C-alpha cells in the first residue's frame, strides 16, 4: 500500500475546526496550531509507545492552511482536554469532552489509551516546553545585559519552582497522574521526559562547577525535583510556602554537598553524608502521608 498518497487528503476535522474557529472567532485554535507546528520533533520521543505512525511534516514543504496530520489533531484534542481535567481527572472522559469542544464526536477519545496516559504525557511535555522557553528567555535577557546572571542555587530554585507552579491548576488530580505515570508501560516515556527536563535545567544553569560529574548532577537535581513534587502534593500552606522552603533547603544541601566534597579528604564520606540527608528527607515526606 502506498502511504505517500495519504497526505494529499486533508483531514475533514480540520475543515470542521476551521468552521468552528471562524464561528467563534477564537484566537486560541490558530495560535495553538502555530505552537505545535514549531514543535513536531519535540513531541516525537514520547509518542513512541503508541506505535508507528507516518510522518507528515515536511512532505513536499507544502502545508496549506486546512491540512494537518493526525498527530497535530491529537495534540489539539489533548490540549483541549486539559480544561476538563479538574472535573473529570486524567481520564478518557476528559479527552472526550475536549474532543467535543473541537466539534468532534466523543468517540474520538477512542484514539487514545483508555487510562488517560497520553493526556498526562502530553501535559508533562507541554510543561517542559514552557519551562525551556522560559529559561531561554531568561538567558537572552542575561546575554543582552538586561539581567544579572543568577548564582547556581538560586537558578535551580527558580527553575524547579517555575516548573512545579505549572501543576497548580491540576494539583488535586496530580497524585492520580503520578501513579499512572509509574505504570510499567508508561515508565519509559515518563522517565524520558523527566530526564530531558532535568538536562535542560542544567544546560541553562551553565556548568561552572567541576565538582560534580554529569551523572551526579542529574541524579541530585532529579532527587530534588521529585521530593519537592511529593511535598507539594500534601502542602496546604498559602501559595505552597512550605514547599518552596523545602526546595530551598534541598538545593542548599546539594550545594553544601559539593563544598564539603572539596574540604574533606575522602569524598566518599561526603557523598554518604549527602545521601543520608536525602534519605531522611524522603522518608519524612513519605511518612507524612504524601501519596493519597
Amino acid at each position, binding site marked *: *500500500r502506498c502511504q505517500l498518497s*495519504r497526505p494529499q*487528503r486533508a*483531514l*475533514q*476535522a480540520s475543515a*470542521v475546526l476551521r468552521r468552528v474557529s471562524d464561528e467563534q472567532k477564537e484566537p486560541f485554535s490558530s495560535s495553538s496550531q502555530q505552537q505545535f507546528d514549531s514543535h513536531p520533533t519535540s513531541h516525537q520521543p514520547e509518542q513512541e509507545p503508541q506505535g508507528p505512525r507516518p510522518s507528515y511534516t515536511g512532505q513536499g514543504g507544502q502545508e496549506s492552511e486546512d491540512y494537518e496530520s*493526525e498527530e497535530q*489533531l491529537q495534540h489539539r484534542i489533548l490540549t483541549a482536554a486539559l480544561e476538563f481535567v479538574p*472535573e*473529570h481527572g486524567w481520564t*478518557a*472522559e476528559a479527552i*472526550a469532552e475536549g*474532543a467535543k469542544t*473541537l*466539534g*468532534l*464526536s*466523543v*468517540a*474520538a*477519545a*477512542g*484514539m487514545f489509551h*483508555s487510562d488517560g496516559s497520553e493526556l498526562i504525557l502530553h501535559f508533562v511535555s507541554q510543561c517542559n516546553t514552557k519551562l525551556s522557553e522560559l529559561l531561554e528567555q531568561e538567558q537572552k535577557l542575561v546575554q543582552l545585559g538586561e539581567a544579572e546572571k543568577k548564582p547556581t542555587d538560586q537558578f535551580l530554585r527558580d527553575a524547579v519552582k517555575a516548573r512545579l507552579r505549572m501543576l497548580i491548576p491540576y494539583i488535586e488530580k496530580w497524585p492520580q497522574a503520578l501513579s499512572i505515570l509509574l505504570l510499567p508501560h508508561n515508565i519509559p516515556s515518563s522517565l524520558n521526559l523527566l530526564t530531558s527536563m532535568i538536562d535542560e535545567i542544567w544546560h541553562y544553569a551553565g556548568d561552572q562547577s567541576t565538582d560534580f560529574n554529569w551523572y551526579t548532577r542529574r541524579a541530585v537535581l532529579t532527587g530534588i525535583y521529585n521530593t519537592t513534587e511529593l511535598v507539594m502534593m500534601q502542602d496546604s500552606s498559602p501559595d505552597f510556602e512550605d514547599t518552596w522552603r523545602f526546595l530551598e533547603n534541598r538545593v542548599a544541601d546539594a550545594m553544601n554537598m559539593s563544598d564539603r566534597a572539596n574540604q574533606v579528604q575522602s569524598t566518599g564520606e561526603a557523598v554518604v553524608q549527602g545521601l543520608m540527608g536525602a534519605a531522611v528527607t524522603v522518608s519524612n515526606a513519605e511518612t507524612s502521608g504524601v501519596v493519597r
Partner: protein
Amino acid sequence: VYQVFESVAKKYDVMNDSMTLGIHRVWKDILMHKMNPSPGTLLLDVAGGTGDIAFRFINYVRSARERQLQRKLRHSQNLSWQEIAESYQEENFKPLGDSQVVVCDINKEMLKVGKQKAQHLGYSEGLSWVLGNAEELPFDDDKFDVYTIAFGIRNVTRIDLALQEAYRVLKPGGRFLCLEFSHVSNPLLSRLYDVYSFQVIPVLGEVIAGDWKSYQYLVESIRRFPPQEELKAMIEDAGFFKVDYQNLNLGIVAIHSGFKL
C-alpha cells in the same frame, strides 16, 4: 443472503452459542470495552438484528452514567437541599445520559427477534429498530458517534459501499468498529479450525436449526472474506484514519477500528 437469515433468525442466538462455544459473548464484550462509550454517545449498530451489541452498549453506558453521577455528587458537597433534590428529579437524572443506539438490519425477521428480546430482557429506552441496507443507509450525513458491524460485514455484497456509507453517516471524529471472523495465521490452529468449521458446524446447524445449507454457506463465507490487512486497506480507502486491527483468539476473530478525522 436474505433467505439465509430469514430461516436462521429464530435460532440465531442458539446457533451462535453452540458454534463458538459461547465465546462470541466474550468477543462482543471485548468490542464494547474497546469502544469505551461515554454517556451521550449515539451508536449505529448495523446488521445487529438480534441486538447483542445494542444491549451491551446500553448496559455499559448505564454503569458509566452511574459512576459519572456518583462522582458529580461527591464533588458538589456544598449544595443546598433544594439543589440536591433537583438533581434527583427525573428530567435531570437521565439514567442513560442521552445515549442512544439505533439497530439497523436488512432483515425484518432478525429485527423482530431483537425487539422481542429487548422486551423480554427489559430494555426500553435508548433503543431504535430500523430496517435498512448497509450499502445504502437510510440516515443523514454526520449523524452517529460510533458505527459498529458485528459479524455482519462478510454478508454484505459490496463491502466498499458499506464502508463508504459508514464513513458518510459518522460524525467527524466518529469511530468505525468492525468485529468479524478473520484469518488465522498460526498453521496448527488453522488446521484445527478448518476441521471444526467444515465438519462440526454444518452438523450443528442441521441438528439445532434444521438447516445444513445455511451453515455451510456461513463457513464458506468466512473463508472467502478478506484477511486482516486487506480489510484494513479497504477501510483506509473509504477515508478512515488511524485504522488498526486487534486479533482475538489468534485471528479467528478480529476487531478493526478506524476514525473519521
